[in-house]
């Protein structure tokens, strides 16, 4: 479970987070939806401890990220934006490296790497160096890295960007599988269809604040609109930054 409580964060002169609070439950997929510059990435970076909040706190399974970063990070899998690949390593080496950093021993890491490569159907690229990979191949590698150690909480920052249909389906199936296994999945996006199709709980944010949250149906009802996209535009009061 990921809990964000009254987060405030100022970057330069901008209030990137402005009293942000929401909860992402275990066994559910939570979508963080917002226009460009809403503070989605800042929020996620604060949750995995890279940015320090000016006030408020973020908790992973009840562990405060700022106070016990090591314990909190051990319960997280992270798919960042940008992917942060090592161009000169192969996906197998890359995934294996991060599996070991996340606490698996060498044997466990090797086995977990084989499993995740099979699960994401990436055997054809597993032993090629990441240099020259397509966007989809990069995303898959980063995704494998995020879930290889089977963390209880998975955070994905814009996971569907650049994926083709097949890869998007694989991603969708993977997220649903993680959900079925009881993991907490939190992802940010501005692709409405993905969010509408996958999320049990949607947090709409703008200017570092939560504007509305609830299931897709609840949000549509609240805004009195037919689709999530229309509800989103109505709720944030602008159509800025929507890529559908």
């Amino acid at each position: 479970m990921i809990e964000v409580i009254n987060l405030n964060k100022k970057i330069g002169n901008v209030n990137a987070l402005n009293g942000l609070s929401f909860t992402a439950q275990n066994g559910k997929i939570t979508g963080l939806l917002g226009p460009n510059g809403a503070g989605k990435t800042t929020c996620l970076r604060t949750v995995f401890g890279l940015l320090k909040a000016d006030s408020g706190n973020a908790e992973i399974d009840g562990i405060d990220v700022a106070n016990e970063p090591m314990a909190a990070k051990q319960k997280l899998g992270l798919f960042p934006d940008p992917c942060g690949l090592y161009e000169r390593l192969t996906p197998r080496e890359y995934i294996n490296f991060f599996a070991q950093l996340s606490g698996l021993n060498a044997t466990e890491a090797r086995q977990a790497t084989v499993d995740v490569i099979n699960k994401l159907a990436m055997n054809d690229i597993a032993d090629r160096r990441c240099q020259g990979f397509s966007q989809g191949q990069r995303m898959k590698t980063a995704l494998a890295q995020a879930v290889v150690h089977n963390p209880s909480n998975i955070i994905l920052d814009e996971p569907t960007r650049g994926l083709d249909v097949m890869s998007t389906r694989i991603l969708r199936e993977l997220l649903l599988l993680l959900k079925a296994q009881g993991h907490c999945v939190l992802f940010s996006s501005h692709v409405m269809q993905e969010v509408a199709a996958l999320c049990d709980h949607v947090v709409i944010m703008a200017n570092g604040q939560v504007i509305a949250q609830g299931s897709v149906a609840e949000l549509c009802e609240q805004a009195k609109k037919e689709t999530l996209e229309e509800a989103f535009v109505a709720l944030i009061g602008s159509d800025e930054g929507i890529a559908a």
Partner: protein
Amino acid sequence: MINLLAVLFKKEVMDASRDKRSIMAGLYYAIGAPIGICLLVSVLLQQLSSPEPLNINIENANQAPGLIAHLNSHDIFASADENKRKAITLSISEDYQLKMSEGRPATVTLIADKSDDKLRAHINQVEKAVSLYSSEIASLRLVSRGIDPSLMRAIALEVHDQATPDSKGGMILGIVVFTLILALFYAAMNLAIDTSAGERERNSLSLLLSHPLHSLHIVLAKVGAITAFSMLGLVVILFVSKLSYAMVPWQQMGFSITITPEFMLFSIAICLPLALMSASLQVFVSFMANSFKEAQSYVTMVLFIPMALSMVTTYDIATDIVQWLPIAAQQFALMEFIKGNAIPLPQLMLSTLLTLVLCFVFSFLSGRMLKSEKVVFGL
């Protein structure tokens, strides 16, 4: 913790070893520097052992056959071909023979451009030869008048050169050791920048920091990997030096530089702390910079400090205090080892200790920087 460090170190080495361009850029220096020095010394030796005849323009040569014969015996010849001779003209006056026979100063005019750096040595050579001839003739005149020519010499300066053959080569030896120390810095410079500023620019640094590990572990693994490549550079330059210096005819210069296996082991032992310090310094500076390009400029600038410390020892202008400092002390110890003198142990031990403390300080500061969001995201 050790296990985690090993995982990080292994990844750093694997990643760096595949960066062929950076590695080769470091090794070009390690291979090229000793060969360059050998070529330089060989050319120098050739010039010293067989000085080229100096061809100049001599006007009215027939007036002064004695002077011309003297000049020829000093490798200075008259040449009519403008392309072959230097732009130096020695003009013998029309009344040369008359003045000579009267025992009065005969005028010989030297016409040349003294601001021309390339001509200066040749002009000196001609001036010296002419003044030597002049004093020889003057001495003969005194003898013919029954006067002891030694009256003209009030002081007889005798110089006793205490230099041993090996210490004579001090300067060249200093440069040889200097190239070794520089190899530590140059061999891994690109890798150091790539693994720190480069890693941040490729966004993998923030991912690394999101994992449950201390930032100091990340820094130590990077320093370890860079040190490994620095030491590789040192081993390469030692082997290339051993092979190439063996081909220089040192005996012509009265000293010799031989890279013995003992010296190689001694260098490796002494330079390991330096390599650690160099790696931590380069990582620290690279993380301080905002971008890869900025890091390249800063690291190049920072390298002037070790170069300066090594240089003052090479040219023997180091004060007593400098000799206790890192790099300077190690360079001094290496030079004394090659010369076969006693190694200045107190200086070496203190500076090694200082070197290791500096390595720790730079690593610690880098680790602390990685906790700053400003550094990680360049905010």
